[in-house]
């Protein structure tokens, strides 16, 4: 009698922004489903240690790299090391992202540049570094974590919305360019998710948001992670260039 084979057994996944929120939840689910996971984090060693302990407690293989996705040389050498260590790269989850909210007419060039660099150039660097290995295998999947801001826009987030819109465009572009290599590229667009990114959000803003959300609650990182795993595994083999909205029925 055959046993249950975890969906990602024998696969290798890379997750950027791995130590917190959606990145961490995705990594833990991938590990639980049998994948070896490599991850990039920028600075939080404590969170990285916590993730490593959690991974080991379920017998998962995790390898963490400290650095920024803004830095193409770092990202290239990281992917090379992952491939050398694990022998393949099956899944890339581009989750790293940042916000620097400000009304557009008051926004500084630095605020604009910082968000575009992390959220757009970071995804370009990570994708460009992973794709050659996936193409060599003739299979692979990239899942980009964009946002409903990239679909609907949001006040005080012209920089973040533009960056997440660009990410939707990158999803379409890379899907088109690499379908023939056996690589699929999709995206998830979470709405308001209960993570650190909500720190500083006023009570009234949150209430206003929930009033315009059909399910009247925040999403969880685990719910987004489930959608990422769905897009990354064989169940969605015919989906590419798509964006899956996870916003609880957000209305604006």
């Amino acid at each position, binding site marked *: 009698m055959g046993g249950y084979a975890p969906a990602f057994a024998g696969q290798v996944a890379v997750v950027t922004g791995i130590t917190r929120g959606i990145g961490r939840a995705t990594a833990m689910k991938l590990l639980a489903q049998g994948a070896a996971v490599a991850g990039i984090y920028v600075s939080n060693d404590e969170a990285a240690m916590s993730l490593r302990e959690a991974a080991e407690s379920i017998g998962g293989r995790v390898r963490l790299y400290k650095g920024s996705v803004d830095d*193409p040389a770092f990202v290239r050498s990281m992917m090379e090391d992952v491939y050398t260590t694990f022998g393949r790269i099956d899944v890339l989850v581009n989750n790293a992202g940042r916000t620097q909210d400000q*009304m*557009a*007419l008051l*926004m*500084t*060039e630095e605020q*604009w*540049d910082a968000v*575009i*660099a992390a959220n*757009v*150039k970071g995804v*370009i*660097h990570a994708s*460009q570094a992973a794709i050659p290995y996936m193409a060599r295998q003739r299979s692979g999947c990239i899942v980009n974590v964009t946002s409903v*801001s*990239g*679909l*609907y*826009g*949001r*006040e*005080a*987030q*012209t*920089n973040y*919305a*533009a*960056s*997440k*819109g*660009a*990410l*939707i*465009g*990158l999803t*379409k*572009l890379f899907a*088109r*360019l690499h379908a023939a290599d056996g690589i699929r590229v999709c995206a998830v667009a979470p709405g308001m998710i209960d993570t650190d990114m909500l720190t500083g959000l006023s009570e009234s803003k949150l209430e206003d948001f929930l009033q315009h959300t059909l399910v009247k609650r925040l999403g969880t990182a685990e719910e987004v992670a489930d959608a990422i795993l769905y897009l990354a595994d064989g169940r969605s083999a015919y989906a590419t260039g*798509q*964006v899956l909205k996870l916003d609880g029925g957000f209305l604006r």
Partner: protein
Amino acid sequence: MLKSAYLYAEDVALASELCRPMLERGMTVAVQLGDPAQADRLLAELPEELGRSCMPVIAADHPDSIDNIGEIVERASESLQGLDVYIHAASWEDEASLLNKDPEGFGMHIERRLRKLFLYCQAAGQIMVRLRKGQMIIPLLSDVLHASGFPSSPVYNQAAIAFVRSLAKELSPFSVTVNALEFGYCRDSDFPSSRQWRKQFEIFALRPHVPEFREAAQGIGLLLDYGHAMSGQTIRLGIGIPSSTI
């Protein structure tokens, strides 16, 4: 009544066709181009009576910073004695070709294009907010036309659409509207009829009319007429072209 417009353009042909409907309505249009030769070409393409209301602005040597761009747009609006319309017409590039040609430089290129969009709209927005009226229009070429050989910029387009939607929310209290204007199939004037093209474009509609770009560009009139009452929208000028936003 709309009297003045500032058109940022990276391509003379695009500039010429986009400014023409405004000039025909009697508006004065400042057109920013990269160098004096482009300005000469623009004026040569326009009929003399329209060219008289067209003010070329050359800003090639100015680094893209908030201060420099703010000064350029401010100075132009003083000459125009107002700023009713701002149009940001980045060139229609094929991002797949750019990525293939220069994979290392692709991210920087996208960053530069988006930075210009932000800085110019910020500069125009400052003036319009002060005047408590105005329209911003971001022309795009639909990025789903790549299969028919059209240049496709999904990264820039999707970023610009999200930017438009965000900025529209912010500027609505000041009666300033922001919309994207997305063109579908169109043809160069050297193709004598749309018949040659129609079969090729049947994916979205059966034998669609394929307008010359000059005809399609007249669609900007939709926004010139009604753009004060709509904001955060992507207006699609084409036949059967689906939304490029997923």
